[in-house]
Structures are given as C-alpha cells and as structure tokens.
C-alpha cells in the first residue's frame, strides 16, 4: 500500500474545507478564530450555499477573515457590520448574509448597529467572538472583560468603579423580538466544536428561511492577550469565562 492508496477518497476521514484557502493565517497559535473560520467554511460548503454567501468582516483580529474563506466579503468600518449586512440582505433577499465580529466591534463601538439590526429582525446571522479583550490593538479592555482581569488598559485588573461591568450583550439580544435564535457556544474541546458547528448551521438555516436574526456567540480564548499558553487559556476560560457567559441556547424560536 503506497500513499496513493491511503489518500483514496473512501479512506479520507478529515480534510481542509474546500472554501478555506492556503493563505497563511495571521492568527496567533491557539486562537479560537481559526477553529470558527473552519466551521463557517465547512458549513457553507456542506449546506451548498457558497454561491449566495456574503460575509461582512469586522475591524479587529478577524478583519482579514476575507483572506482565508473563499466567498464574497465586504470589510466593514469598526462596529458597522450589521448595517452593511442589513442592506445586502434586503437588496438580495435570497443571499445568506452573515457578520463575523469580535467583542469590541459588536459590543462596544457597534452596539447600536447590532441591537437595531437584531431588533428589526434582519435575516442575517451574527457570529460573535467573545474573548474579553481587544486582540488586534494589543490587548486592551473589552466591554466583555471580566472584573479583575488584567489587560493593557486595566493593568491592575478591571475595576467596577473605574470601568463598569462586563457586558453580556447576548443576554440583551435574546430579549429582542427580532431575534429567532441566540446561543452561546465555545470551541475549546472537540465536543464543544461539534456543538458550535450545529449552532452555526441552525443560524445559517434560519437566515435562509428568513426567520429573523440569529446570533451565535463563541466564548473564546485570546492566549496572546491573556498572556497564557493555549492550553492554559482554554482552562482559564472554562474556569472563569463560563460563569459570566454560560454556554447554551438563550433563545430558540
């Protein structure tokens, strides 16, 4: 048996998604973005919707998402992805339009656009990477940064009296009449990855079925920003992040 026998299609159990290209990723080793990118690429292919998918990239670490997934993309201004998605979805009602946003983009500068797009019930999917820190700009406090968490702009830990409380924006979004599916997932174990994939699939299907706005929050690690090894970051997330951001469906209509 040589290598050509081994790589026969019937022997293949796992492969790189066809919509994911060979560009070197700029993400840090251990970052959750790579896993979520892979899930999105797999699903768009498996669901047969690559031809009608339009992704809206944020400002933040995922600003270059368009470099890795071979679908149409628009790179939004910081926080404005849901506004762009609103227009494209309304102008092309048969398209699958999704945003891919981080916690600064979605829950700080883009709070207004996020809440109003969701409240209008736009037929879009919002994938929300919450790693409680600004990765791209060098590890500053995010709206979702936990109390006591050290960042570049909370060097002694986040203090309520100085910085206010961590914002569980997904809880808020679940309260809006325009949202049909709001869930919080993670990708730190193989089981979690499978659940996250199922969640994103449901969200995409809702958008195709024009059921309203679907939001999939992925509670994520930023081991570079957190200054931990990837494995330690996974453990730290499970121990600290899930208490404030518990996993599971918040709304499933």
């Amino acid at each position, binding site marked *: 048996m040589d290598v050509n026998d081994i790589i026969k299609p019937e022997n293949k159990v796992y492969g790189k998604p066809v919509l994911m290209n060979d560009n070197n990723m700029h993400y840090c080793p251990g970052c959750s973005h790579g896993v979520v990118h892979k899930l999105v690429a797999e699903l768009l292919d498996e669901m047969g919707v690559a031809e009608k998918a339009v992704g809206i990239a944020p400002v933040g670490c995922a600003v270059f998402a368009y470099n890795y997934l071979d679908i149409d993309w*628009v*790179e939004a201004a910081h926080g404005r992805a849901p506004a762009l998605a609103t227009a494209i979805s309304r102008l092309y009602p048969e398209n699958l339009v999704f945003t891919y946003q981080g916690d600064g983009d979605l829950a700080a500068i883009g709070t207004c656009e996020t809440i109003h797009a969701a409240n209008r019930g736009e037929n879009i999917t919002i994938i929300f990477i919450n790693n409680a820190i600004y990765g791209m700009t060098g590890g500053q406090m995010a709206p979702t940064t936990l109390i006591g968490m050290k960042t570049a702009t909370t060097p002694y830990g986040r203090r309520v009296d100085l910085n206010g409380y961590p914002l569980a924006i997904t809880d808020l979004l679940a309260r809006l009449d325009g949202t049909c599916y709001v869930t919080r997932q993670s990708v730190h174990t193989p089981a979690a990855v499978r659940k996250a994939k199922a969640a994103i699939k449901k969200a995409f299907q809702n958008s195709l079925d024009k059921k309203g706005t679907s939001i999939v929050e992925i509670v994520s690690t930023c081991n570079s920003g957190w200054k931990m090894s990837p494995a330690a970051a996974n453990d730290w997330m499970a121990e600290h992040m899930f208490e404030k951001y518990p996993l599971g469906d918040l709304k499933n209509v």
Partner: protein
Amino acid sequence: MEEEIKLMKGNEALAMAMIRYGADGYFGYPITPQSEVLETLMAQKPWETTGMVVLQAESEVASINMVYGGAASGKVVCTSSSSPGISLMQEGISYMAASELPALIINVMRGGPGLGTIQPSQADYFQATKGGGHGDYHLITLAPSSVQEMCDFVGLGWDLAFKYLTPAIILADGVVGQMMEKVVLPPQRKRLTDEEVRQRCPWAANGRKGMRKKNVITSLELDPSLMEVNNERFQRTYKKIEENEVRFESIGTEDCDYLIVAFGSLARISQKAVEMARKRGLKIGILRPITLWPFPKAEVARLSERVKGILVPELNAGQMIEDVRLAAGSGVRVEHFGRLGGIVPSPDEILDAFEKLFLGK
C-alpha cells in the same frame, strides 16, 4: 411611468427622482430640513412598484454604512441628510471612496457649526469638496440651484458615480430643499435585474454565482507600498474627473465688467441682483459652478483676465472664495459677501455689498 410635470419641493423631487432613476435602495435618518425625502419615499411605497428598498435607519452612521453595503453589492443606493448628519457619515464616505464604490449622498445644508440651526446654509462647502473624512479623496460634488436640478442631479450623480466608481454628493442648501417649483420628472428608468447588476459590476460582493472568483470589498492594505499604489490609482481617477466632468452655468458673462461666482440658492438670488444692476447700467455676469468639485478653475481663470472684480456671495464665512482666488490668481480683486447662521440675503443686499466693495458706494 412617463415624463410628468409636477409642482413640488426640492426634497420631494429628490425622492421622486430616486424612484424614477431606478434606485435599488435608500437608507436614511430624519433630520430637518430634508426629512421630506424619507417621508415622500415612505408615502410612495416604491417597494410595491419598482421593488426599491427604503429603510429608516437607527442613525446616520447606520444609514451610510447601509449605503456602503449596498454599493459594495453593486446596487444603486443613496442616502440623504443635513449637515450634522453628514458629519456623522464622514467615516463611511471615506471607506466608500477608498473601496472605489459608486454611491450617492445628498446634503441639504443647514447652518452650523454644532447643532446650529435648521435654516439654510452653504457652510459645508469645504467638507464636501475637500474630502470631508480622513484620507486623500474627493467626492464629485453637484450643487443644484433649482428643484429641477434636485431631480436631474440624482440621475447625474449616479451616472458619474458608476462611471468613475467613486461616491458623488449633491450639495444642496435648505432653500433649494424647501422651495417649491415646477419640475419635469423623468420617465421611469428600469431597475437592473440581479443578473444585469452582476454584468455591470463584476467586482461586486453579492455571492459567487456560478462559483466565479471571489470578490472582496475592502479599504484595508497594510503594506504601505501597495497602499501607495491604491492612492495613486484614486488620484488618477480624480484627475480624469477634473479633466472631463467640470460643469457650470454662465449668465451674462460675455459682456460683463464684473463677475459674481455663486452656487446653489445664492446663484438664484444673485441672478435677481444682476438684473437690478443691469437696469442701473452695471454689467455683472454670473458664473455658477454646478460641479463644486471638480471646480471650474479654467473658466474662472479665463473670466478673471477680463473683469475688474469678482464677488463671491455665499451662505458661509468664505469657503468657495478660496477656490475662486486660487483660480483667478492675483491680477483681479476677489471679494466675499456672506451671511451666516441661516440668514439668506436679499438681491438688494448682494447688490449693495457689490457697490460698496467695488464702487466705493
């Protein structure tokens, strides 16, 4: 729908023109003195006739980014607002200029700075013609002075935006937005089908139909050597626009001893002032820039060699006069007359200012 003659406000004409020129989408937020645009569109319900999308956004920031999304997908889209709202849109406009997207923005100017007033102004001339947002860019800037031009420039703005792949702005003022005049509405232009959009805009992000090469709309380029190439390309486009798209109207400039350079409502008021002057034996001509950018530099330069003086009346503290002075050179006296804060001068005031400044009366 055939060509139709109507009596309406400038703002209403903007809305009717959007529908008739085959707009795919309008995204806006109410602000005085241009709220009739969104109101008229909502009353017309074009989604039931042409299929045009109309949406009241949550802010001007959202509406310009909806326009950004729509333009990125190849559709014919626009927004309108008034001065404070246009300030909020500058980031999105800069992104569209950098992404080389066709879109139409309409500013029915009111007096500023700040919340200012709801009365007419022309104080956003610098903002519109010199870029407005961050970075080196220009907007094709059209200045209507009649309700008819409010209508016509919607079509012209989109045509130029799609020809050069850059945003265009209609810089109107509150007078032109609120005044009523006769207007000839154009026959209904058919909206493009999605297939026609894909043919006209093969670069647009609207889904990889037929699994064509992917399209990415972005203004980001971290490699400075490539970002410089992008900027040089933008500048080449601006140069072409400057060469090909200068538009102006001349009224009595061939025999004039003095010249008034005015745009928008002040060109209309100046027309009356000039009629009054001619009765007193004073030959004053009017040059009305229709494109504020590209500015009719050559025509100003040509006329400045013949006239004894140039008056630039504006509803601001002196903005367009800088372009007039640059074009006219130092051989001719160029004076400004401005009213501020929403005050609109009468023809007498303009003529008085002229006589005082140039005839020492």
